[in-house]
């Protein structure tokens, strides 16, 4: 059974857990969004490069 009555220390326990959840959430969100952003940008550049094949042959070769 869960014990959620933190009195008389609720003012210390909940902020510690809340802040941990907030910071970990922010770290995860930053990592995931950054990964998604660069993947999207790479895909966009790949599409651009298809119009100019000889210009980007080397870079495209690296990512496969």
């Amino acid at each position, binding site marked *: 059974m869960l014990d959620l009555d933190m009195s008389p220390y609720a003012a210390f326990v909940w*902020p510690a857990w809340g802040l941990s959840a907030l910071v970990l959430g922010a770290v995860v969100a930053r*990592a995931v969004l950054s990964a998604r952003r660069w993947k999207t940008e790479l895909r966009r550049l790949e599409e651009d490069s298809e119009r100019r094949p000889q210009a980007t042959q080397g*870079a495209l070769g690296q990512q496969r």
Partner: protein
Amino acid sequence: MFGLANPERFMRFTAPLPPVLWGVSAVLLAVGTWLSFAAPGDYQQGDTVRIMFVHVPAATLGLAAYAALGVSSFFALVFRHSLADAAARAAALPGAAFTALALVTGGLWGQPMWGTWWVWDARLTSVLVLFLFYLGYMALRSSIDDEQKAGRAAAVLGLVGLINLPIVKFSVDWWNTLHQPASLLRAGGTSLDPVFLAPLLTMMAAYGALFGAVWLTTIRAEIVRRRVQTLRARLALEA
């Protein structure tokens, strides 16, 4: 092992790992949180013992992430591996976040138990120094435009900061500190009751898996970012 230093091979090899680590960390966090609030209050600390279940994992991962940063910096500096440089860079922000959490949650535990948010004892001060090393590493990287020079300068700082890790770990043994001595990793085994050990170890595993997922995802994003820059430069040359 060294074959993985090739970014292409690294991307291929690590592709399935982040989703697995995200899943493992989510499950462990859920179980760890449930165990943390199902455990009874400590006979001395009362419910503040539950702060330990987020404080200790954060402190442990703050140290572990810096070890990852320092070792990666060594390989980046000595072998000039771009992947090692990316790994060092990717460990900095989550490591700083874990260390900041350790400092703040430690204060939230210290106020009701010690009667103070902060004391300049060896453990607390050395963890603050660790946090400053993280900040210095990130500031140095972003202050130099040339990425290679920035990486090398930051790697030197990263290596210097490794000296602080044993100081943090053994500060409670080498000096008289208000911070209690080690109760988990110590000679003679843990002094923790199993009722507190289970949630603590589960939360530590959860934080570890979460760091692994964030680290790998960020390294992979960094590799893609560098490819984007290479591609942009080539396209600009051809334009």
